């Protein structure tokens, strides 16, 4: 696929995913929230496809959109949950929540932009924190040439900046196979433990959700 089209598709899907994610928390009816979440997961799955992780994208659709979301909807229907009404403190909580979440997003973004060799390293937030750090702990901020050399040697390939390395189109079809090989060779034990965790989750769900005998 043309890289430019691929990039364009990513931005489109990302925007759509973010909008539908906002829909999850803004819509008052839980059913609408759940559907919006399904939409969001779909777009994320599309992004996975776009990134070449085909197996994960399929799993995302099957597990999340297929199983989990259905489970959510099922519970919502079963409990007959009404849409949330406005109560006191909603505005206050919303303001604080948006503020905290906004700061979080800003921090993550600026950290992402500060990656070694990243483009747009001169964002204002970055500059601000830089000056703050050097003011708070000048010793740590002082550029020690040997330390920076060491850092350079550690992250020598530094692939984080710039564009992602391109995938070999010939090996695209082998995605599931390679993932499976990795999963069943290196992470076999972890996989078994994960199976037990799922089993424990099932047992726990049953024991918690079962109706207690009234006697």
């Amino acid at each position, binding site marked *: 696929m043309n890289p430019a089209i691929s990039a364009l598709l990513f931005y489109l899907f990302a925007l759509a995913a973010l909008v539908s994610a906002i829909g999850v928390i803004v819509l008052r009816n839980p059913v609408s929230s759940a559907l919006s979440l399904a939409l969001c997961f779909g777009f994320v799955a599309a992004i996975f496809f776009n990134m070449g992780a085909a197996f994960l994208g399929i799993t995302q659709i099957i597990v999340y959109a297929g199983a989990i979301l259905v489970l959510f909807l099922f519970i919502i229907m079963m409990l007959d949950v009404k849409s949330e009404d406005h109560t006191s403190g909603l505005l206050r909580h919303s303001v604080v929540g948006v503020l*905290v979440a906004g700061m*979080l997003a800003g*921090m993550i973004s600026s*950290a992402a932009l*500060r990656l070694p060799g990243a483009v747009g390293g001169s964002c204002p937030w970055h500059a601000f924190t830089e000056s703050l*750090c050097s003011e708070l702990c000048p010793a*740590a*901020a002082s550029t020690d040439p040997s330390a920076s050399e060491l850092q350079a040697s550690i992250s020598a390939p530094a692939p984080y900046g710039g564009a992602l390395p391109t995938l070999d189109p010939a090996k695209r079809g082998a995605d599931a196979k390679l993932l499976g090989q990795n999963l069943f060779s290196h992470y076999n034990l972890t996989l078994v433990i994960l199976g037990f965790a799922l089993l424990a989750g099932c047992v726990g769900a049953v024991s918690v959700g079962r109706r207690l005998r009234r006697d």
Partner: protein
Amino acid sequence: MLHNLPWLFLALPLLAAAIDWLLLFRSPRAAATVSILSVVATLALCVAYLAGLQTGLPDVYSWLPIEGCAINVGLLMDALSMKMMLVVTGIGALVHIFSLGYMKDDSSNHSRYFAGLSIFMFSMSAIVLADSLIMTFIGWEMVGFSSYVLIGHWYEKESAADAAKKAFITNRVGDFGFLIGILLALGVFGSLRFDAMPGHLAIAASGPLLTTMILCLFCGAIGKSAQFPLHVWLPDAMEGPTPVSALIHAATMVAAGVYMLVRLQVSMGTDVFTDTACSVIAAVGALTSLLAALMATQQDDLKRVLAYSTLSQLGYMVMAAGMLAGEAAMFHLYTHAWFKALLFLAAGALIVCCHHEQDIWKLGGLRKKMPLTSLCFLMGTCALIAFPGFSGFFSKEAILDAAWQTSMPLFVTGAVVAALTTFYMVRLCLVTFCGEAKSEGASHAHEAGSTMLIPLLVLSVLAIVSGYGFIADELVPYAGFHAEGVEVGVPFFAGLLALVVGAWLAWLIYGKSAHRDPLGDYTLARILRNRLYIDAFYDKVLVDGVQKWGSYIITCVDDGILRRIIGQGLGLLTAWVGKLLGKIQGGSLRGYAIVGGIGVLLLIFLLAFSIKL
């Protein structure tokens, strides 16, 4: 194995005490047997060593292996300690046997009594055989404890319990100084072993430091040997059983202070004893000797007279030690141990036979009813008042000789004390043994039993002969002791004059039978009878003062600061913080999420922006 035989000196009494206390608590007869066996065995061992038994040096056990001043537990076997052991175990054995008769009709627990005696023998042996000041101190504290137990043997009696506490607490005051002195000695010599503190090591130290060290060590002697101003516990200690008074509060334990001083002089050398320190020690000894003799003249209790005379004689010894006449001090210690034990045991026999009547003005006429006991008491008295030919005569002459050569005031004090001693002892004998019986108990008196008489007779013989050169040279606990023949000089005549004047005055005043002291109405006599009001002063000023301060501290510190400010204040603070934190813990899930989110923000800030790798 054999070279560890001396450890039996400590092991046997301790074992006996443990057996008495733990196994034989309900069978007093067996307990007494065990104790007597242990003390007789140690006596035999001691005699064997003095007769020339050589087993080599006993093992030294490492106790605190501190770098630079390792503290070991070891025994020091030299002439001083072994001959002192003979005095201790010899009198100990006699007192143990005497106790059998003395305690026969007593209703208290004999196992406890004999266990106490054994633990005392153990502690005293530890002092005598100690090879370092630390060991001495440990023994020092243990004799304090056993003395406490034995004074308070009849603890149902309030006066006995009080006396026990008084003895213990008063000794603590002295022990505090002693401990400081030990630490100073460690600083000066770098070691506390008696064989590792020669005087030349101390030359580098300054005079004032040495004086302080010696005087601090002397504090221990002040407490244990009951010197002024800590002498107040000894007369009260007479509340204990009389054999205990004979063993602990006359012959051995109270002499430990003198022994310790002489031990220091032997091991450190007399150079370390600065002039100031010596003057203070001699002055304290002389003052104690004089005051105690004065107070003794107006006491009415049989045992208290003897107690004050013990104080007075201890003052003599300390004075001799202060004059650096360790030889004379140990000579007097040795003769005094025998004849004072004799006096106390004889007094004990009198008391038992007169149905626990101790007031001398209610006794009387015992000469006829208890001839043997009276004779023994008379022998002891003659030795104490230094009648020529008796043991006390030789040792007192030695001290007066030393005083004559050292300082005039000390000599005069010594002579006056000798006169006073004769005065009060003759008074005691006249009132107790002559005239008519003045109470029910005394009129029904009878001769003591054989378990009491045998120790008395043995001690009587020793009280007479122990001063003569052929015995003294062998047995006086001082290396290379040689009994000088009595020189006819100023000290000799002074002693004789004191004897004659004291006896004549006493005969003049107390020769006629009376029911109360003819001198009792004079102000001076009243002051002396009330022990110069020193005890009252301590009670009023020290005890009450301390209690007042204590209660002030309780109201101020405890109630005010601790309870009000800290207790309640902390409570209020905690409640306030709790309320504040309770608001956060409001049960609102969203609130928790927000707080958690802020925490996550901080974490990210710290991890991604603040910490530079």
